[in-house]
């Protein structure tokens, strides 16, 4: 369990990192390293070059951004988890962190690295999609914004190009009133077997908007639109909960592995949809 040989570059600034990325098409960015280093030790990945961004100053920020929040590339999970600003403006993310990894992993791991890694059973992509977050990608060629829904493309696959670095995550202000996150994993802190992140807006007892986002049951976090449609247009009553749960289970095509089979994942999605919607609706009151 030792990595294959690689070159190590330490970036002193974002520009430094971008320069190195442009010059080394076979390079990977090293942020918290909580997934990358383990995969290298297993020789599942053998990057020829690592660009370490950990010494770049001032990119671990969590700042106000209009009525939303801007999170720097190197913000550690535990800083995000414990941020009062996030708790106020994106409580769904705070709630999700109750299920994410373990303390020591969160001390090193970064939100940005986690999103770029795009593990199909990771929690944070679901939150990004549910809240409509925007990801800022920068390269020597310039900067572009990608919405979370367009960022996650497949297993370990994102819209980030090889020469780009994710420099900032922008969470919008709360556009909906209700939110809830729930996950099933075999053990607390494990990668998820199934995740649902839900946001709702209810006006005059009528569900006006809903996002039901699943993770762990496909190649990447994705909205379950049939479940959302089942919720919108009326009160969140038992009939709507049942319909949404059934629609959610029908909308996923999960895989089987040693952690759970597909049938279980489908049951889990139904249960989590029901539970998150109920909790999100209660928070709307």
């Amino acid at each position, binding site marked *: 369990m030792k990595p*294959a040989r690689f070159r190590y570059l330490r970036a002193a600034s974002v520009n430094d990192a971008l320069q190195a990325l442009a010059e080394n098409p076979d390079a990977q960015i090293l942020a918290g390293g909580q997934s990358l280093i383990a995969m290298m030790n297993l020789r599942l990945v053998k990057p020829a070059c690592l660009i370490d961004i950990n010494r770049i100053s001032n990119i671990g920020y969590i700042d106000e951004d209009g009525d939303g929040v801007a999170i720097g590339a190197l913000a550690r999970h535990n800083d995000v988890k414990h941020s009062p600003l996030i708790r106020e403006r994106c409580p769904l993310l705070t709630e999700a962190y109750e299920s994410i990894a373990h303390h020591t992993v969160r001390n090193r791991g970064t939100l940005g690295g986690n999103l770029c890694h795009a593990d199909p059973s990771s929690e944070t992509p679901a939150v990004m999609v549910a809240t409509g977050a925007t990801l800022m990608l920068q390269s020597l060629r310039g900067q572009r914004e990608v919405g979370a829904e367009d960022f996650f493309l497949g297993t370990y696959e994102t819209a980030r190009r090889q020469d780009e670095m994710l420099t900032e995550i922008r969470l919008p202000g709360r556009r909906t009133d209700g939110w809830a996150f729930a996950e099933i994993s075999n*053990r607390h802190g494990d990668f998820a*077997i199934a995740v649902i992140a839900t946001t709702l807006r209810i006006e005059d007892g009528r569900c006006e908007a809903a996002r039901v986002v699943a993770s762990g049951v496909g190649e990447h976090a994705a909205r379950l639109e049939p479940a959302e449609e089942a919720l919108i247009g009326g009160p969140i009553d038992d009939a709507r909960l049942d319909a949404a749960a059934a629609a959610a289970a029908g909308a996923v095509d999960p895989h089987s592995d*040693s952690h759970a089979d597909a049938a279980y994942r489908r*049951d889990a999605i139904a249960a989590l949809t029901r539970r998150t919607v109920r909790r999100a609706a209660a928070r709307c009151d």
Partner: protein
Amino acid sequence: MTERGHIPESRQREKPRADLQWIGKSMKRVEDPRLLVGKGIYADDINEPEMAHAAVLRSPHAHARIVSIDVSKAQELPGVLCAMTGADAAKVCDPLPTWASPPVLQAVIADDRVRHVGEAVAAVAAVDRYIAEDACDLIEVEYEPLPPVVDPEEALTSTGDAVLHPERGDTNIGLERKLTFGPVEEDFAAADLVIERRIRWPRSGGQPLETVGAVASFDDGAGRFTIQCNTSMYNYCGWMIASTLRVAPHKLNIVPTLAGGSFGSKMFVHKVPVLAAVLARAVGRPVKFMEDRIDNTTSCDNHASDRVYYAKLALKRDGTLLSLKTRIIDDYGAYLQFGVGQHGNALSQCVGPYRINSVEVDLAAVLTNKCQQGAYRGFGSEVANFVIERLVDAAADELGIDRIALRRQNFIQPDQFPYLIPTGNMYDSGNYQAVLDETLKLADLEGWRAKQAEARKEGRYIGIGVATCQERSVFSATEFWMWNLEPGVEWTSSPDGVSVKIDPTGKAFVTLHSPFWGNSPETVAAQVLAEQLTIDPADIEITYSDTDQGLNSTGPGGSRFTVMVTGAIVGAAGKIREKLLRIAAHLMEADVRDLTLQDGAVHVKGVLDMKMSIAELADKAHYYRLSMPEDLDLTSGLDATYVYDHPVTTLPDPDERHMGIFYPIMGHSCHIPVVEVDVETGQVHFLHYAAVHDCGTMVNPMTLEGHIRGGTVNGIGTALFEEFSYDEAGQLTTALWTDYLIPTIKESPADIVVGHVETPSPFTEYGVKGGGEGGRMGGPPAIAAAIEDALKPLGVTIDSLPLPPSKLRALIRDAQARAA
């Protein structure tokens, strides 16, 4: 002599007493100060000058012929000292030790054929581990795949290319035998009811943070190996490693290192030290081989029992248990290191704490394309506990008798001990009613029954399980060979030795001839010697012998250590005490019979102030022999060694009507977990957990409670999460700890309420029993019972482990579908 054998006289010298100074105290662990600050020296902490590092290329196939292997590119990589194939190793090394008869040949590096994923195909020694692993990537192997044998029941009928060891015949059955103890057929004929179950116990294994490792060196001048290794049976059978290495036993010194959290996984490690030694001799430098996690999970010595039971329990309508019949198919993996010793072990307590008149065990040990079995907490008896407890629960349900009441009705009663069970093993003592009563008190059963009823009204599923389990301790060697048709090795002794020295200043030194393997051997030794010599444990230093110095010692395993080292120290301290009194008698001109040792000094009974401290006497013993009168037997110094034999063991009956007494120091436990099952998700949450153990006289309640609590979480792992899971191709899908799920504190009960009952053994010193296998012996059946109780309204039956959410949800889904 009866049908079940005879019971020898007790050789106990020290009776259990109420006025003990150190035994029974929750003394802080002697080991802790250095270990907790990271100052313990483990195998991987050892660095020798010029030391090379080994890595192993492992088979990606479950079953294949090695057509060709080319190490030339690896050999050429700068920094590589040696790249060795199986053929190279076979030139300098014989097969690995085995207790199987006839033997199952196992090479340290596979030669012509690989038999499981992860089996060593080549080994590299290089200047560092990175280069060694790079070199492994450069080795080219051509395989010709053979049919993988994965399902143990299919292995019963394998032939041809699917046979792993054709030299043993055209079959994958390693051993198949039926043993019958008592009038089984008559008892079944007399039964009103027979409970039948197919029970599946999953393959798991010890998961030490510290994997197995060795640093070997070869002194070319002396023709002698030194192997520093975290092994534990080194003084008992370490010489077997020498024969594998083709040197005389005195040309090999095994030096034990601290061994982290073994739970059996380092009981007699054979592959790692042999591999390090073979490479060290080849490269002329010390070689370190430290398993990494995948080395360990795919190719360790100690995957554990992996059994299918077809079990039948015969009983009368009134609830009287009569007889137990089991057909067992045990998936041993590719090799048989300990033969089928795990089934010797299981015969020790297969009837549980119950009066059952007869037993039949029909065993097929099959060979499959998986890692070999070895030792792990329970060594096969934990499975027998699960089986009998599931059957008793099923019987109670079938008869409409309360599960607890049926147990009480069939318990062996306190006045029936020592008690011989049908297999011949003896239960030395016990009080099962008392343990059950104490547990019920701690568990608040009535309170939980009320909460359960309330919860059911709300559609919540709470369940309470009760398991009353045996916890045998102190094995004797017969368990390793009693099943063999031709015994092969037929050892009868399994002693443990100790050396004790008092230096001229009165400080005590104890040399243990067993290693530290994660438990508290130093604490136990210090407490017992302090008790024996009436000295302060702080004045005692504990060290470990190597094989050059070592006395015959079986080592820790089978919850032996506390009982055996206590016996050995009582023996050695007795010699020292005798000498102290004799010297004191000379120096104080008193009669030995008038002297007594107390508070660290020899006193003349009834005469105040007539005393000499141990320090004074030790000084005289070491340097002033000539100041004493002529006494031919009195020599200078103050030291003793003592090899303590197994306290009570007998040999199997030649006609196999019984297997003799081989695991007699019988602890007992009762576990009562309360769980809530989320029927939508299959998740299990512990609401309460009570466990009471009876391990005889407690030496250190604090460390014993650690075994109980840690063992219980261990049991939760077996019941709910842990499995070495092989797919149809024989790939181990749970080789990493991200997939092999060890429970954490989050999956454990908030507290495990622990209680004790002390029924001292009449056979061991002070009445001590072993308790090292702790909660894992009783947790799984109790948890299964609790889950079944929770899901009673749905009619779910639990007969297979583990039960992670997905598997439990599948059972619930099926039950719901049946009901609908």
